[in-house]
C-alpha cells in the first residue's frame, strides 16, 4: 500500500443547483475519503468555495484533483501545500462544571463563552484542526454534553 496522507483541497465552483452532489458523488463513486467538507458562497460572485479535507496516496490525491477539475461547473481546484487552516467548534457544558476553568481554556484556543442558560453554557473555539482535536481531548473531563465541529477552511499563504 502506498502511504496515505491528509490533504486539504479547495474547489471553486459555479453556485448552481446540485453542484455539491456532483462533488460528493465523485468522492463516493470513486472510493475517495472525505474527512470534512465546508461550502459557502464567495462574496460578490457567482461562485462558491468548498474546502475538502481528504486523505490518500499521492496518486489518489492527483486523481481527485483531476477528476474534480473534469466536472463541468468546477472553475479551479487547489491542492494546498502551504496554508492557513482554521476550524471552529461549539461545545455545550452543564452549568454545574467549573466555568472559570473552561473559559480560561477556551481563551487559549481563540475561543470564549458564547451563550449562558440556566442549565448549560455554550463555548466556541476557532483554531487549527489539530489544536481543536487537542482542546476537545482536554475538556473531556468537564463532561461536554454536545460537540459540533465546522470542518476546516483554508487559504493558501
Amino acid at each position, binding site marked *: 500500500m502506498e502511504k496515505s496522507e491528509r490533504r486539504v483541497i479547495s474547489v471553486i465552483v459555479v453556485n448552481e443547483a446540485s453542484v455539491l452532489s456532483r462533488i460528493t458523488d465523485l468522492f463516493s463513486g470513486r472510493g475517495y475519503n472525505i474527512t470534512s467538507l465546508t461550502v459557502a458562497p464567495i462574496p460578490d460572485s457567482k461562485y462558491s468555495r468548498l474546502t475538502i479535507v481528504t486523505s490518500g496516496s499521492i496518486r489518489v490525491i*492527483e486523481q481527485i484533483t483531476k477528476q474534480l477539475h473534469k466536472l463541468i461547473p*468546477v472553475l479551479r481546484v487547489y491542492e494546498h501545500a502551504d496554508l492557513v487552516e482554521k476550524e471552529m467548534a461549539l461545545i455545550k457544558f452543564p452549568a454545574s462544571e467549573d466555568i472559570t476553568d473552561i473559559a480560561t481554556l477556551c481563551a487559549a484556543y481563540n475561543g470564549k463563552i458564547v451563550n449562558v442558560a440556566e442549565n448549560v453554557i455554550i463555548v466556541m473555539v476557532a483554531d487549527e484542526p489539530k489544536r481543536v482535536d487537542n482542546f476537545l481531548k482536554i475538556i473531556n473531563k468537564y463532561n461536554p454534553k454536545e460537540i459540533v465541529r465546522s470542518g476546516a477552511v483554508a487559504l493558501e499563504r
Partner: protein
Amino acid sequence: MQISGAQMVIEALIAEGVETVFGYPGGAIMNVYDEIYKQDKFKHILTRHEQAAVHAAEGYAKVSGKVGVAMITSGPGFTNAVTGLADAYMDSIPLVVISGQVPMSLIGTDAFQEIDAVGISRSCTKHNYLVTDAAELPRILKEAFYIASSGRPGPVHVDIPKDVTAQIANFDYSIELGLETYKPHTKGNPRQIKKAMEAISKAKRPLFYLGGGIINSNAAYDVRELVHATGIPAVETFMARGTLSHDDEYLISMLGMHGSYAANMAMSETDLVIGLGARFDDRVTGKISEFAKNAKVIHVDIDPASISKLVNADYPIVGDVKNVVQEMLKLSSNINPVKYASWRKTINNFDTLHPLTYHEDTKRIKPQWVIERVGKLLGDDANISTDVGQHQMWAAQFYPFSRPRQFISSGGLGTMGFGFPAAIGVKAAAPDKVSINFTGDGSILMNCQELMTAVEKKLPVINIILNNNYLGMVRQWQSLFYEKRHSETDLSVQPDFVKLAEAFGGIGYRVETKDEFDAALKDALEKNIVAFIDVVVERLENVMPMVPSGGSLFNMMLLEKKEKK
C-alpha cells in the same frame, strides 16, 4: 421569437443539424412529441425499448462522428435508458439524451412516473441538466451539444419537466456560450511534444499503443501517416480497431486480454510506449505492475485525468490527439524507419511462433470462420457492430477492418444487447454500407424486439448469431477457472430464431454448413430486409490467446498447437 419549451427543443435540434432522433414517447415528453409530429426537418425512429433508443443513437454517433440524439419519457422510460447512458459514458460517445420529467409542481411528491433522473444520471454522464425555466432551454441545449462533442466526448442528459415544455419564452439560439469553467485543452504543449519526439528518436524498441481516442478525434489518417513516417510498429486497443488497415505492415494486432501473442509480447518488450488516445484499461494492461515494465511512457490524451491514472506517464501530453499527432509528424523527419527493422523482425517472429488463428478440426462450423468469411465477402463494404461476449472478441480478432468508424462495439461497459440497436443506428447513419451485427445466442435476446424497428423503418441489419447454445464467454471462464461447473450458462433451450425473425416480418436462416452460410448471407443481402442468420457453431470453442484476469500480459494461455491435416 416567443415559443413553447417543446418547440424550443425542435428548433434547437434543427439548429444543431440533427437529422435523426431515436426515441420512445410517454406522458411527460408528450408536448415535445406533439411538436415532432408537426415538423419534417428531422426523422424520428421509434425503437421498441428506451435502452435500444440510446444504443441506436450511439451507433449513429459512432459511425457518423456526429452527436447522437435520443428522446425518452420520465420514470421507467428514463431508467430503461440508463444502461445506454452508462455505455456511452464509458466509451466516450457524444450523445444528447432528452427526457421528460413530471411537472415542476409535482417534483418531490412521488408522482406517477417520477424518478430523480438527474440524480441517477449524474454518475454516468459527462454532464446533466434539470431545466426549471423554459427561458434557460436555448442555452442549456446549446451547451449540451457543445459539451457532448468537445473535449473528451460523452453523453449529456437534459431532463425537462412537462410544464417547462409548455411554457412560452424567448428563443434565441445565436447566444454565445459562457461556460467559463469548461475549456478543453486541445493543443498539446510544444515543449512536451518535442521532448517526446526526442525520446522516440532515442528508443530502440518503441511501440505505438493506439486507442479509441484516435477514432473520436478523427485522427486515424494522421496516425497512419505518423506510423509510416517513423516505421514504428503499432498495437491497437479493442476501441481503436480500424485505425490502421488490417493489411498495414506496421500493425501487429489488438493487444490485451484477448490480444495476439505478438501484440502482447511487443508491449512487454518495448522500451517506449507511445500511447495515443488510450486509457490503459485493465483489459489491456493485465497485471499493472508488470505492464511494459521496462518502458518509458508517452501518453497523449485530451483527458488529463486519464494520464498517470494507472500507469505513470514520463511524457504526459494533454491535447487533442489529432493536433498532437500532426505536430509530432512535423518533427518526425529525423527518425529513420529502417532503424526499427530488427525490432519489427523480432515481433514478426513472435507472430510466426503463435499466430492469431484457430483450428478447423470439428464437423461444426468454427465461429472464427464465420467472421473471416464475412470479412472476405464484404470487407470494407460492411460496418460491423457486435454484442458482448466471445463473438465480440472473435470479431475484433478476425475481421479485416480497413477504416476508422467501421467497428461499433460496447468496449468499456460491455453491454449485452448493444449490438442490434446500435447496428440499426449504424444503418440509419450509413445506408450505403451493409450493417452487420455479430451476436451470440445470449446477447441477441436482450434487444430482439428491435426487429420491429428495423422492419418498420426498413433498416436491413443482418444479425449473424454465432449460436453455441451457451453464454459462451462466461462458460469459457467456468471451464477454465471454475472446474467446468457451467452454472446457468447452458442455453440449450432457446427460441426458433428463424420463426422469431419471421414473426416480426424479417427473414431468418438456420445454417449448419459453410455453403448454407454463404447462401444465407447472399440471400439476406439480396432481399434487403432485416435478417437473423442463426449459425450453429462449435459449442466449446474458446477465445485464445487469453490473459487470465489479473495475470501479466506476457503470461498468455495459447491455442494448442496442432499438425496441419
